[in-house]
């Protein structure tokens, strides 16, 4: 597979070094399928980067961006560039290059969605390994997202849109607070604002067992005697009597 790569760093030497490491990484990541990286553009300033990207931008490109780009703190830096890229190439795989290990990466993940980063280091071997690993996960993401047919449940937690593989859901239930729902899944719990009836309409793979609860039948174990449904994490939900016929029918299949 051939991947389109863009590099923006205010230091020309870093660009040269990165290109060199891309060659090594391509060699390491190739097995049956040969992997090549084509650097379609490179820039040393925010402005020239935008100029290049305005002319040509791929879908699902890989972008190496310097965080500390230029002199102005907090303006026209790598993050602003990343924001531009995400808008124009939603599948973009962005990898920040920074000299500070204490960079608050979660702030930028919150702002830009999934991004990766590498810390500049004088240890070339270590850096090459780190770049290969990062590229590997970027490639994985690109491959999976193109062949992906899996079902996702999306919900809004505040202003942030989150999604979770439908198969990982255990159940969604109401909480004591109005409009607040709780989604319990394989890896944890997530609260969000919504209504059970609206979700029941849009997510046919979930089964409504009562006024206050939707379950993922694939993860549920049903006990007809006590009207009880048990989930792998030990949580229990009870279904209302009027649904027992429907549930019997569903689970006997």
């Amino acid at each position, binding site marked *: 597979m051939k991947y389109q790569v863009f590099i923006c760093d205010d230091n020309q030497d870093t660009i040269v070094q990165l290109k060199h490491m891309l060659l090594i990484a391509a060699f390491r990541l190739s097995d049956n399928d040969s992997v090549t990286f084509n650097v379609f553009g490179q820039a040393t300033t925010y402005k020239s980067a935008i100029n290049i990207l305005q002319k040509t931008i791929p879908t699902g490109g890989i972008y190496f961006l310097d965080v500390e780009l230029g002199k102005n703190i907090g303006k026209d830096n790598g993050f602003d560039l990343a924001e531009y890229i995400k808008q124009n190439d939603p599948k973009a795989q962005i990898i920040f290059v920074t*000299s*500070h*290990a*204490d*960079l*608050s*990466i*979660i*702030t930028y993940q*919150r*702002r830009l969605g999934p991004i990766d980063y590498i810390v500049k280091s*004088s240890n070339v071997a270590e850096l090459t390994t780190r770049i290969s690993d990062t590229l590997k996960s970027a490639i994985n993401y690109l491959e999976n997202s193109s062949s992906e047919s899996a079902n996702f449940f999306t919900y809004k*937690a*505040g*202003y*942030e849109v989150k999604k979770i593989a439908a198969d990982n859901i255990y159940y969604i239930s109401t*909480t*004591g*607070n*109005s*409009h*607040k729902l709780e989604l319990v*899944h*394989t*890896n*944890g*719990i*997530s*609260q*969000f*604002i919504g209504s059970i009836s609206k979700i029941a309409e849009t997510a046919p793979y979930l089964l409504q067992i009562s006024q206050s609860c939707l379950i993922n039948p694939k993860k549920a174990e049903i006990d007809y005697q006590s009207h009880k449904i048990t989930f792998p*994490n*030990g949580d229990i939900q009870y279904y209302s009597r009027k649904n027992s016929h429907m549930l019997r029918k569903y689970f006997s299949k």
Partner: protein
Amino acid sequence: MDSSNLDFFTNIAIIIISYLLLLKIIPKIITNLTSTNKKVFIGVLAYIYISSTVLNAYVLSDTKPTEVIIVSLALLFLQSIFILIMYISLVEIQKKLLSHTQQKELLQEKQELEEYSSYLDQNEDDLRRFKHDYQNILNSLKIDAQEGNVKGVIDKLSEYTNSHFNEEALRKYKDLNHIHIKELKSIVFSKLTQMYNLGILYSFGCESEIYEIPQNIDLLDLVRVIGITFDNAIEAETDYFNSNFLQKQDLRIEAMYYQDHDDFEFMIRNRIPNSDITLSQLTEKGYTTKKQHPGLGLANVKQFSQKYDNVIIDYHIKDTWFIFNLTILPIDEVTD
């Protein structure tokens, strides 16, 4: 006739005197009626009123007060005084206790401020030194470069970089200056100090300038929850280190404040071992169960979420992180 005149005058005198007395006392009564002790105060007033009414009735019903009535009158009077004194001393004790905790808080705040300002001073010094060094280095580099001594240039530069730019201390309290709410700033400050002293690698980010958060939230509640989640993360990392699940350099805690429109978000994540640890194991061990107070952590966080309709929480495992997320939505986002 004389005695009735005297009666008249004494009555008027009593009314005038009590009016003057009341004028002085009324403001005090009002503050007492509205203070936190208003129930006790009203109780005291009710007691005095009822007992005097009962007495009055007794005295009026019997033209010749017997000794029993006089004694009980005296007793009731003494009791009323006793209760009043009790009430006053109770209020005094409360005041003292309150000022004591306030003083403690102030003291802690002062210490934090001092530490923060000394950190800023230190930074200022470093910056000045850098300015000074910069000119010297530039000059010596120029000479090396003119002589074509590239290796010398690189060596000098990298030496300087290593000794001056990798200092963690320089970035110890990064982004704290963007938080303009005292309580939210000081909790992060004290937790960052704690992690720094424990030698746990951490990062804290606050990109936006935070001046206010949704108004219905009691800041003390929020600060408590933030403190608990920091404590949990620190405790988990220390546990993983002590039980050899993680090496010192792999310990890591990352936290942030974030503001999108007018909400407020807090997120913290701590590194967990790469093995297949399930959430229930985690919630049993590192997260909810503190040694002294079993289950205190998560219970408090859940309580906080239950108290406010506009607070949503989220905690889960992803990759090698345990992630905790708290979002406070603007109130009008949830009431429609």
